[in-house]
């Protein structure tokens, strides 16, 4: 086994393992921390896919941003962290069925499909400049729209969160 493969599996295990903790853990704080590792693992996967910029973005935004958000809200919504940090589950059986079907179906499809793989490695060494150019040319409109959405989300989030509780 090459080192490449070993590291690949290492990241895969981290990702899937943490995901399992996220999904099955009853302690919400633990789940949140596990999610952190899951994101980290995915970032590693991106590196395997030669997507350096995405990987970094993943780290910055998910690990640095979204996680913090989640943790904050966990703390804000739990009366006391210790007591009510555990949460229950509902409709377990149908959920298992459905997710298993979907997961199985997906894996099956991925497996049987004969992908036309391009064996060559992409020439691009660093993706960031290319992505930047594409964002400002081909994807200019979505880019602008996305920026507007971010702005709206920012304002909207602030608006919603600060609304006083009506008695």
């Amino acid at each position, binding site marked *: *086994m090459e080192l490449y493969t070993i590291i690949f599996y290492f990241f895969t295990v981290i990702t899937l393992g943490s995901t399992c903790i996220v999904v099955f853990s009853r302690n919400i704080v633990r789940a949140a921390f596990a999610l952190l590792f899951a994101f980290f693992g995915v970032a590693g996967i991106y590196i395997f*896919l030669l997507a350096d910029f995405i990987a970094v973005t993943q780290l910055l*935004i*998910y690990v640095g941003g979204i996680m913090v958000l989640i943790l904050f809200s966990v703390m804000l919504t739990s009366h006391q962290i210790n007591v009510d940090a555990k949460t229950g589950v509902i409709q377990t059986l149908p959920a298992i069925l459905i*997710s298993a079907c979907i997961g199985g179906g997906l894996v099956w499809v991925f497996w049987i499909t004969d992908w036309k793989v*391009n064996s060559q490695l992409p020439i691009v060494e660093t993706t960031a400049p290319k992505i930047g150019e594409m964002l400002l040319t081909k994807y200019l409109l979505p880019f602008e729209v996305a920026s507007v959405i971010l702005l709206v989300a920012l304002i909207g989030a602030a608006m919603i969160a600060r609304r006083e509780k009506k008695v």
Partner: protein
Amino acid sequence: MQDLINFLQHPGLTHFLILSGLLFSFGIFAILTRRNAIMVLMGVELVLNAANINFVAFSRYVTTSLDGHVVAIFVIILAAAEAAIALAIILNIYQNFNTVNVDEINKLKD
């Protein structure tokens, strides 16, 4: 069997796809089962990550252009926005209903 071993030894496109598929189904499961809204949100994030892996993987192995990357970035952007909004909503719900358990919030029924 040899095929399987061979397959496992040479990570390629399919590996990533399967990984993303698993991640996706875990995410779905979390969304469907957890009572806590924040946990639901975590599930959503997992689903989005799964999709992202797919995009990047196809971009790497099939097209060799970077369009997939760009889309992934958009997804990340949207995820961030969605997380912010969702968490704000959750906080708001919490203030109104004093709970974040989704199953208790069944106003839709009335």
